[in-house]
């Protein structure tokens, strides 16, 4: 338990150890820890930023969806309107065409009717004339009665 030179040996050793620790042991350890701290901090910041960006993007996407929905609705409404217009137009055209065809057919019909009637009239009058002439062949002179017969055929027509 004597106090002796050991004390100074210990003192020198202590100084040496502390110096070595300060120079070679402490800095790399603390530096690595500090670096990791920074990395974690920046990572957290980036995560935060990413989250807010994602939220923003979501809002933007929702906006875009809404916009395109509106647009689609508009397009559909337009198309519907256009389609109904086209149908209306087509109906009009068809109706006109029908009218035209009808008129044509009617005209044709009338023409045919009159034609047929005329023909019939002619034939009837011929027949009558034949019959009458057959009946009157002997008694009536064709030349005499020519005038009367002409009047008759005229009234028949």
């Amino acid at each position, binding site marked *: *338990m*004597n*106090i*002796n*030179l*050991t*004390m*100074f*040996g*210990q*003192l020198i*050793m*202590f*100084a040496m*150890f*502390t110096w*070595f*620790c*300060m120079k*070679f*042991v*402490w800095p*790399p*350890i*603390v*530096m*690595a*820890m500090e*670096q*990791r701290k920074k*990395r974690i901090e920046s990572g957290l910041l980036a995560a935060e930023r990413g989250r807010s960006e994602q939220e923003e993007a979501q809002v933007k996407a929702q906006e875009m969806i809404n916009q395109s929905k509106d647009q689609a609705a508009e397009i559909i409404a337009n198309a519907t309107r256009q389609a109904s217009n086209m149908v209306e137009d087509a109906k009009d055209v068809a109706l006109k065409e029908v009218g035209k065809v009808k008129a044509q057919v009617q005209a044709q019909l009338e023409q045919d009717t009159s034609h047929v009637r005329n023909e019939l009239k002619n034939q009837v009058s011929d027949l009558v004339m034949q019959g009458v002439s057959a009946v009157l062949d002997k008694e009536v002179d064709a030349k005499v009665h020519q005038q009367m017969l002409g009047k008759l055929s005229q009234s028949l027509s």
Partner: protein
Amino acid sequence: MSATNEVITSGSYIKHHLQNLTYGQFPDGHWGLAHTVSEAKEMGFWAFHLDTLGVSFLLGALFLIFFYRVGKKMTVDTPSGVQNFIESVVDFINENVRGSFNGQNPMVAPLALTTFIWIVLMNTMDLVPVDWLPYVAQQIGVWFGADPHHVFFKVVPTTDPNATLGMSIGIFILIIYYSIKEKGVGGFAAELTFHPFGKMMLPFNLFLEGVNLIAKPVSLALRLFGNMYAGEMIFILIALLPFWVQWSLSLPWAIFHILIVLLQAFIFMTLVIVYMDMAHQKEH
């Protein structure tokens, strides 16, 4: 624990355990190893305790090499088990320094780390059963042709007041160095003389502050030494009991001693930080 047939009494056993392996100057002027307790005593101041110096050097080197190697292989990404351990120790020291030290000095934290780990390791030697390492030393001594009974070996450096005083004197030098560096010679002198009672009581102030200043290293050294010496003493006394009851006392004491080992190292480190902080304080 002796290889000779000499009868070992309790007294001689204890004395043998408490004697350092001393290398010093004999009264006649030549240097050599002390073979007896009285020879060691006669050497007086001009002697070295080889066991204290050797064990503390080995432990300090062990600590530094271990930390240095881990520090060199530090990775930022995924720390391994050893690195985690080192980092938690460094974190613990850093937290303590940040809590108690307000100045700007890159030396304080490494100083605290060195102090803490070195003292923990030196104190931990107390937990090695009291006879193991002295026995090994004795066998080595016998191998070198020494009388086994004259080979002394005190394993725990902190049970040697030289070790604790050496460290606390180092701290004392740092206190004075940084006090003068931060406050200037005048500021440091003013702190010692104009406080706590003003200029009129200058000699009294100087006396008070002087005692205060000297008490720091002395209390630092004696607290650690006293605690470890008492603990070691109890282990030695337990070792004197019959072998079949030894474990029932040495085991609880060892478990309790783990607490003291860490606590004393922690107290020493904390006080070093606090003293460094006081040395750096400009306003009193």
